[in-house]
């Protein structure tokens, strides 16, 4: 990776394409998970790589071997700016409101049907999490970062981050269970 970055820093087009190819979808997935708008996610992806392109040759990437942490720090900052601008906040909601909210989510029609009901419910529950819990989950699962990289990025001890991830998953599971429809017992079907 360092060789690729060095080549890109010198203006090598092939190296740059390989880097973008390697990370564009991860950046897009994280941005889309947060914004829920494909057009905005694409805009954020492009803007992030534009920032990288401007900063990389200027020697502003100084954390050797930590490119992913650096890249996703830029992504997170860009997403936060966008969220602030759009005043879209993923506030925690009452689990009882979740079903109604799921129906109101702009992309919860066609796209969510494609995802399958299980993943659509997971998506809706994720949106109901607090900003902090959601960030940990999305960095881990959408951006695909290791816990060490996340600790670097969020400037937190590894143990704290592992506990945060565990807590966030627990809350997510509770939200999922709260919206789960109780199954009818078999004997009632007859």
């Amino acid at each position, binding site marked *: 990776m360092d060789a690729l970055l060095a080549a890109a820093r010198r203006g090598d087009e092939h190296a740059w394409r390989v880097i973008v190819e390697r990370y*564009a979808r991860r950046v897009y997935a994280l941005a889309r998970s947060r914004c829920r708008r494909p057009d905005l996610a694409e805009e954020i992806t492009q803007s992030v790589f534009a920032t990288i392109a401007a900063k990389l040759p200027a020697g502003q990437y100084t954390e050797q071997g930590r490119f992913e942490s650096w890249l996703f720090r830029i992504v997170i900052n860009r997403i936060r700016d966008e969220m602030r601008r759009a005043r879209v906040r993923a506030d925690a909601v009452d689990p009882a409101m979740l079903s109604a909210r799921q129906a109101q989510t702009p992309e919860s029609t066609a796209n969510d049907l494609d995802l399958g009901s299980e993943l659509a419910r997971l998506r809706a529950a994720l949106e109901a999490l607090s900003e902090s819990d959601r960030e940990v989950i999305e960095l881990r699962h959408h951006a*695909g970062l290791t816990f060490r990289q996340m600790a670097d990025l969020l400037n937190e001890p590894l143990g704290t981050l*592992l506990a945060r991830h565990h807590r966030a998953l627990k809350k997510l599971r509770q939200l999922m269970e709260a919206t789960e429809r109780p199954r009818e017992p078999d004997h009632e079907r007859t």
Partner: protein
Amino acid sequence: MNAPDQNPFLTPRDRVLAERLDALSQQERAEAPDTLAARVAERTFPLLQQASRREALGLRHRGLKLAAALAAGLALIVGTAWMVMHRVRPPASIVPGTLAALEDDIELLLSLQSMGQDSTGEQIDALFADAAAVSEALEADSLDLVLNGDSL
């Protein structure tokens, strides 16, 4: 999990949920437009090129500045060494002689100036004296004519 490490705090039920989250993220990555990376690379490459050229130019400028500073330093060292080797004394040793010569020159100039001023004054005084003498002579001649009653 996407990343190779694991969270040791997770229960089996948490792990199932984590796997579902991974599946969700895979779905969302797959939903990215096929040409996304190519388009992003194409649009951002000119920026990379520009920044890369600017950086190369900056490095060249920095190199020139460094070379100029080194050359100036070298010239100073060589100059100092040459002066030491040739025992060139600082200008302070010739100051008294120069000052004495300068004083003589100034005195000469002042005396010349005062001489010039004196002769001019004397010439003016002489002119005034001559003018007064002529005037007195004329007055005396006209009185004699009146007193003696001579007519022309």
